[in-house]
């Protein structure tokens, strides 16, 4: 299997792990649905301004891990977390944390595009309107720049008042990205954002991710090895053992994980012999 890598990860002059600021620092995280443990002892950093890919076989807890990073998992019922997740040094599971502020700082894009059944404009403006009362002109600006960042502006600028449900799947997904970007998050979590999309829409979103890296930090779950190697600088490989509990097997620069993984399981997975 052939992989092409993003420049900065293979470039020897690119910053190494030690020189980076972690936007999120995960320490010994365990996650329970009810009494069922889904992941355990995960420790890793998500570096600021970098794209971190999360790969691994189905059911190994990638989505669970991602959802634990902005505590959106708490909508799913009784869940419990052990360990720590630090967002620029603050533990997101501490009592003082305001959940709504947290989620504004750590946005999320889901596997299935989930636009609201309202107009394109109102979708993008939604998050902004929730926490502030912007003037019409500043809102217009925010919406336009978010749609431009999501590479959707030229396709929808004449139809901003049309229903978002009239867009194609790929456009809807970029709308969801624009909607997440409009609240100016520091981190964007993406859970298989391209799994429902055709190759052209996928390519657009990959270009977008690369571009967005200048402004924010991205963690992306993907089943597509080529995609992981194309868009990310760092890669985390998750897997399960006989106990069916997900674990972080290996974390490193994307080049390292794909070319010279230290764990045999990682090597098997990225070479397509497993999962």
């Amino acid at each position: 299997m052939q992989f092409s890598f993003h420049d900065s990860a293979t470039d020897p002059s690119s910053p190494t792990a030690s020189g980076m600021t972690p936007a999120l620092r995960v320490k010994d995280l365990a996650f329970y649905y009810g009494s069922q443990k889904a992941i355990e002892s995960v420790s890793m950093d998500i570096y600021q301004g970098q794209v971190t890919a999360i790969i691994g076989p189905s059911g190994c807890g990638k989505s669970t891990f991602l959802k634990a990073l902005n505590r959106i998992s708490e909508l799913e019922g009784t869940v419990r977390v052990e360990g720590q997740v630090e967002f620029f040094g603050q533990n997101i599971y501490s009592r003082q944390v305001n959940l709504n502020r947290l989620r504004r700082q750590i946005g999320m894009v889901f596997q299935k595009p989930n636009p609201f059944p309202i107009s394109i404009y109102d979708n993008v403006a939604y998050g902004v309107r929730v926490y502030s009362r912007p003037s019409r002109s500043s809102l217009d600006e925010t919406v336009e720049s978010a749609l431009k960042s999501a590479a959707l502006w030229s396709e929808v600028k004449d139809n901003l008042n049309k229903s978002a449900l009239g867009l194609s799947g790929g456009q809807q997904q970029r709308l969801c990205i624009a909607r997440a970007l409009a609240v100016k998050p520091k981190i964007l979590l993406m859970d298989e954002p391209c799994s429902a999309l055709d190759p052209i829409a996928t390519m657009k979103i990959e270009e977008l991710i690369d571009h967005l890296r200048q402004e924010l930090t991205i963690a992306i779950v993907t089943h597509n090895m080529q995609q992981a190697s194309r868009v990310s600088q760092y890669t985390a490989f998750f897997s399960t053992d006989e106990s069916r509990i997900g674990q972080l097997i290996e974390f490193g620069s994307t080049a390292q994980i794909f070319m010279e993984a230290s764990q045999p399981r990682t090597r098997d997975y990225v070479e397509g012999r497993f999962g």
Partner: protein
Amino acid sequence: MTATPEPAQNLIDRDRLNDVNLANQDGHNSFIDQGFTWLVQGFAMSVVIVLGWMSWVIFRQAQPAIEKFGFGFLWTQNWDINELTFGALPYIYGTLVSSAIALIIALPIGLAVAVVTSERFLPPWIRSPIAFVVELIAAIPSVIIGLWGIFVLIPFLQPVQQWLFQHLSWIPIFNSEPAGPSMLIAGIILAIMILPTIAAISREVLIAIPKELRTASASLGATQWETIFRVLLPSAISGILGAAMLGLGRALGETMAVTMVIGNSDQISTSLLNPGNTIPALLANQFAEASDGLHIGALMYLALILFALTLIVNMLAIVLVKFLKPGEA
């Protein structure tokens, strides 16, 4: 691939592979299918036939009154059995006003019940009983609700009615001395009776909203209340309106409980503290004793009007539900 093991071939059902005939060989089976189709269609048609038959009978019996009074029946106020002059206005007015009061009270409460029982404000062991008890109200016979209205609700609300009269009598709807039974009480009784309909349907509609929309809203930093008001209720609007219309339809046609608490007065009054009357209440009170053809005709004419009212409300519900589908606005 030449050395395919023998047993594997035995697993293949040759007959099935070779059977590519599409012709219908089992005539017996298709006959039962056809018969069943006819049977079901027949049952479905019988509903339409009964409805048509009913309208026709009512229309024919109303004929004497329709000929005598014409459309003027709708806006005259006299109902004198001895003089044989009849006018429907007080009953149309009473029906519409009591149902409107019912809707105004029951819609917000029903929505609140729907929201509280479909969202996770409360632990499930409180939520489900609330939903169950509210839906149980629908199972109480209306005579019993009427009795409860007379013996419990009227005495209980009399001080409230007094207070409204004493302090708010400058508002026309409260400017009469309350005597117990009133339009207001009838509206409240109706509100209780349509509450389960509104609550149960709105709850179903809210529960049916895709979970993804809640997650999307929360992931943008919205609180649960913001999600409810900005995403869930707007998405559910057509279903909620449908629920309201169904409730209204039921309120318009409710007979027994209303008759028992409305006071059965034929005067039109702006004050809700005064007694009033409704079409179903009048029909229930007078039909058994009506002997004159014109009297019966006038009652049937009223029934026809009620029929038309509920039909309009239900059609409105269908139209609203159709055209207010979320996202198609």
